[in-house]
C-alpha cells in the first residue's frame, strides 16, 4: 500500500503527458484498493468547453500534497442543466468544491466575433445581463448546496476589430468584458462560499497568444492548450490545499547563500552580499518577500550551520537585513545536522513537519531532509541566486481561504511565546510560572465577527481537540443561528501579549436537562496553562445555573489527540460508555467544579 504522495515521488511529473499517466495510474491503484488515502475531497467540474485531461492532471497534482480527489466532470456544455436541475448528478454527488468554467465564446460568440454590431447602449446592457447570467447560476447552486464555488472570470481578448482606437470607444468591447470581471469580483468579495477565479490573469501569465491552439479548438473545443493544463490545475490546487488542510504554515530558512550571499563565518558581516548592489539586492528582495508572508501570518524559523554569534550579529546589526530577530519564531544556529534541527524546530514551534517548507541552497542538506523527513516540502533553490524570487513566487502552498485577525498576529504571538519560554526556564513550578504570567481568560459567547476564526480553529486544531469535528464557516453560521446550541469561546492574554481567540466549546443544549459538549478544543499555543479548566468550569456553572443535571463530554480518538484522552477523567467526569466510536463521559452538576485559583477570568 502506498499513499498518493509516495506514488507521486516515484513518478516523473514534468510534462502534461507525465501528469496524465500519473493521474491514470493513481486511479487504477485506487480501483484496486492499493492506495492508502488519508485525505480526499469531492470536486465537480462544469465547463462550457472541453476539460479533457483536467481530471487526471488534477488527481496527479493533488497527490503531491497527499490528497486523492474524487472528481466528477460533467459533459461539457451541460453546465446549465446540471446547475438548474435539482435532480442532477451534480447535487447528488455533493461536491466540496465546484469549479465552473464558462468562457466568452460559448456565451456570446456573435459578440466576440462582431462586437461592434452592438451599439454602445447594447454593450452596456450586455454587461449587466452577463453579470446577472453568472449570478443566477451561482445563486442556484448556493440555494441548493453548501459546496464551495470556484467560478472562472472571462478572458479579456487581446484583439479588437477597432485596433488601436479600441480605447477611444465610448463604451468599448474589451471594456465591457473587463467590467464583467470587475463586477463579479466585487459582488463576491464578502462571500465565504464563492470565489472568482482570475482565469483572465491565468491567461495573461501563460500568454494569451499561446494559450489557445486554434487547431485543437476547432477539432475538439479545447480552449486551453493541453501543455498548459498542469498550470491551470496547479491554480485549482491553490484552493484545494486549504480545503483539505494541506496548507503550509512555517518556512524554515538557511542563512548563508539563502538569506544573504556568501559565508558570514568566512567573510564577516561586511563581506556578505546584502543591500543595494546587483549581488546583494536579490537577497534583500527575497527577504522582503518573506517578510510580507510573515506579516500575513506565515511562521519563519532559521536552521543554519553557523556560529550563532556571527549569524546573530548579521541579523541584529546588518543595515540591510529586512528580517530581524523578532521575525523568527525559533532559531537553530548550530553545527548539528539539519534533520534533527528541523525536528526540534517543529516541536518548539508546535507545527507538524508536514506544514513546514525548507529553503537551503545546499543540495546535500536538501537531499538529506527529503530522505529523512519526506513530509517536509523542500524547495529546490536554483544554483543561480538571481532566480530565487521566481522559484519563491511559484510556490502555491501558503494559501488560506480567509484571513483571520489571528493569522496576521500569529508571529507576534510566537515572539511572546519565546519570551514565555525564557521565563519558564527561570521559574520553578508550573503554578509559580502561571502566576507570574498574569493570565487572564476572557470568556465570551460567540458573535458574528468570531465565525471565521471559530471555523478555522475547528479545522486546524489537532492536539487539544476532543472530538475533532471539522466545521466550515457556513456550518458555524448555522450553529450560531440555532437556539439548540451554544458556542462559548475563550481569549487568553498574559503579560507578554494577547493570544487571541484560542479555545472554544460547542454545546448542544436541546435537551435542557442534559448538556452535551460536542466540541472542546484549545489552540496549541495556550496548552498547559489551565485555560481549558476555566472554560470547563464556566460550562459546568452555566449548566447548573440553567438547571441541567448532567454535562456530557465526548472523546473520539484521532491520530493526534492522545494528549487529551484522559481530559475528562482528570476533571472529575465519570466514564459511562466506551465504544469504537469513542468515549462518553458525564459530570453530575450536583458536584462542584472549581475555577483554577491563580487564573483571572472575565465573562464578557
Amino acid at each position: 500500500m502506498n499513499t498518493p504522495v509516495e506514488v507521486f515521488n516515484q513518478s516523473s511529473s514534468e510534462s502534461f503527458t507525465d501528469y496524465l499517466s500519473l493521474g491514470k495510474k493513481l486511479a487504477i491503484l485506487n480501483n484496486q484498493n492499493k492506495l492508502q488515502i488519508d485525505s480526499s475531497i469531492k470536486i465537480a467540474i462544469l465547463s462550457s468547453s472541453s476539460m479533457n485531461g483536467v481530471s487526471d492532471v488534477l488527481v496527479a497534482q493533488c497527490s503531491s500534497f497527499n490528497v486523492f480527489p474524487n472528481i466528477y466532470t460533467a459533459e461539457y456544455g451541460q453546465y446549465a442543466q446540471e446547475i438548474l436541475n435539482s435532480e442532477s448528478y451534480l447535487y447528488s454527488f455533493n461536491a466540496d468544491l465546484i469549479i465552473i468554467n464558462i468562457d466568452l465564446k460559448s456565451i456570446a460568440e456573435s459578440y466576440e466575433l462582431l462586437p461592434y454590431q452592438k451599439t454602445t447602449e447594447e454593450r452596456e446592457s450586455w454587461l449587466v445581463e452577463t453579470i446577472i447570467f453568472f449570478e443566477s447560476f451561482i445563486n442556484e447552486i448556493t440555494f441548493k448546496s453548501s459546496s464551495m464555488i470556484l467560478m472562472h472570470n472571462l478572458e479579456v481578448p487581446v484583439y479588437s476589430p477597432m485596433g488601436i482606437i479600441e480605447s477611444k470607444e465610448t463604451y468599448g468591447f474589451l471594456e465591457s468584458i473587463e467590467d464583467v470581471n470587475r463586477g463579479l469580483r466585487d459582488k463576491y468579495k464578502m462571500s465565504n462560499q464563492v470565489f472568482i477565479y482570475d482565469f483572465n490573469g491565468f491567461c495573461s501569465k501563460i500568454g494569451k497568444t499561446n494559450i489557445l491552439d486554434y487547431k485543437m479548438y476547432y477539432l475538439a473545443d479545447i480552449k486551453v492548450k493541453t501543455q498548459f493544463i498542469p498550470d491551470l490545475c496547479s491554480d485549482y490546487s491553490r484552493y484545494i490545499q486549504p480545503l483539505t488542510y494541506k496548507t503550509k504554515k512555517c518556512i524554515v530558512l538557511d542563512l548563508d547563500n539563502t538569506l544573504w550571499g556568501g559565508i558570514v563565518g568566512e567573510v564577516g558581516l561586511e563581506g556578505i552580499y546584502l543591500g543595494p548592489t546587483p549581488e546583494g539586492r536579490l537577497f534583500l528582495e527575497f527577504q522582503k518577500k518573506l517578510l510580507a508572508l510573515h506579516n500575513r501570518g506565515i511562521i519563519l524559523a532559521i536552521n543554519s550551520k553557523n556560529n550563532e554569534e556571527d549569524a546573530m550579529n548579521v541579523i541584529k546589526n546588518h543595515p540591510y537585513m529586512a528580517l530581524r530577530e523578532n521575525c523568527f519564531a525559533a532559531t537553530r544556529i548550530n553545527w548539528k545536522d539539519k534533520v534533527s534541527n528541523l525536528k526540534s524546530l517543529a516541536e518548539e514551534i508546535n507545527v507538524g513537519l508536514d506544514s513546514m517548507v525548507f529553503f537551503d541552497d545546499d543540495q546535500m542538506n536538501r537531499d538529506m531532509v527529503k530522505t529523512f523527513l519526506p513530509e517536509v516540502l523542500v524547495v529546490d533553490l536554483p544554483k543561480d541566486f538571481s532566480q530565487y524570487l521566481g522559484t519563491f513566487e511559484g510556490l502555491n502552498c501558503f494559501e488560506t481561504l480567509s484571513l483571520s485577525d489571528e493569522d496576521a498576529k500569529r508571529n507576534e504571538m510566537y515572539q511572546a511565546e519565546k519570551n514565555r519560554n525564557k521565563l519558564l526556564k527561570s521559574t520553578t513550578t508550573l503554578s509559580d510560572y502561571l502566576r507570574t504570567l498574569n493570565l487572564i481568560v476572557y470568556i465570551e459567547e460567540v458573535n458574528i465577527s468570531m465565525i471565521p476564526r471559530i471555523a478555522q480553529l475547528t479545522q486546524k486544531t489537532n492536539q487539544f481537540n476532543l472530538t475533532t469535528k471539522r466545521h466550515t464557516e457556513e456550518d458555524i453560521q448555522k450553529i450560531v443561528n440555532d437556539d439548540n446550541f451554544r458556542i462559548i469561546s475563550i481569549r487568553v492574554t498574559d503579560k507578554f501579549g494577547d493570544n487571541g481567540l484560542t479555545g472554544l466549546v460547542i454545546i448542544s443544549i436541546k435537551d435542557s436537562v442534559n448538556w452535551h459538549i460536542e466540541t472542546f478544543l484549545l489552540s496549541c499555543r495556550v496548552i498547559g496553562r489551565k485555560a481549558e479548566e476555566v472554560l470547563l468550569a464556566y460550562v459546568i456553572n452555566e449548566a447548573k445555573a440553567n438547571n441541567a443535571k448532567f454535562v456530557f463530554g465526548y472523546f473520539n480518538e484521532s491520530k493526534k489527540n492522545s494528549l487529551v484522552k484522559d481530559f475528562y477523567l482528570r476533571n472529575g467526569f465519570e466514564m459511562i460508555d466506551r465504544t469504537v466510536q469513542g468515549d462518553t463521559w458525564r459530570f453530575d452538576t450536583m458536584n462542584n467544579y472549581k475555577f483554577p485559583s491563580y487564573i483571572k477570568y472575565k465573562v464578557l
Partner: protein
Amino acid sequence: MISNNQKLMTLISSVLNIDENSINNETSPENTESWDSFNALVMVSELESQFEVQFSIEEVYSVTCVKDIKDALIKYGIVL
C-alpha cells in the same frame, strides 16, 4: 542521438500507455483501447512540439494508424 523512429515510438507509447515493442505500423484506434479521440489529439500536440511540425486539420483526420503518422512526418521532411 536518439533516432527519430525511437523518438516516435517513445512518444506513442507514453501517450497511449502501451509497451513500445507492441507498436507496429498497423497499431490503430481499432486495436488499441487507449487510442481514443482525446489521446489522438494529445498525440498530435506532442508530435507537433517534439518534431517541430504543424499538421493541418485534414492531415489530423487522415490518420488511421501508426503508418499514417509516419507518412505525415515524412511529408514534412522528417527522416524515419
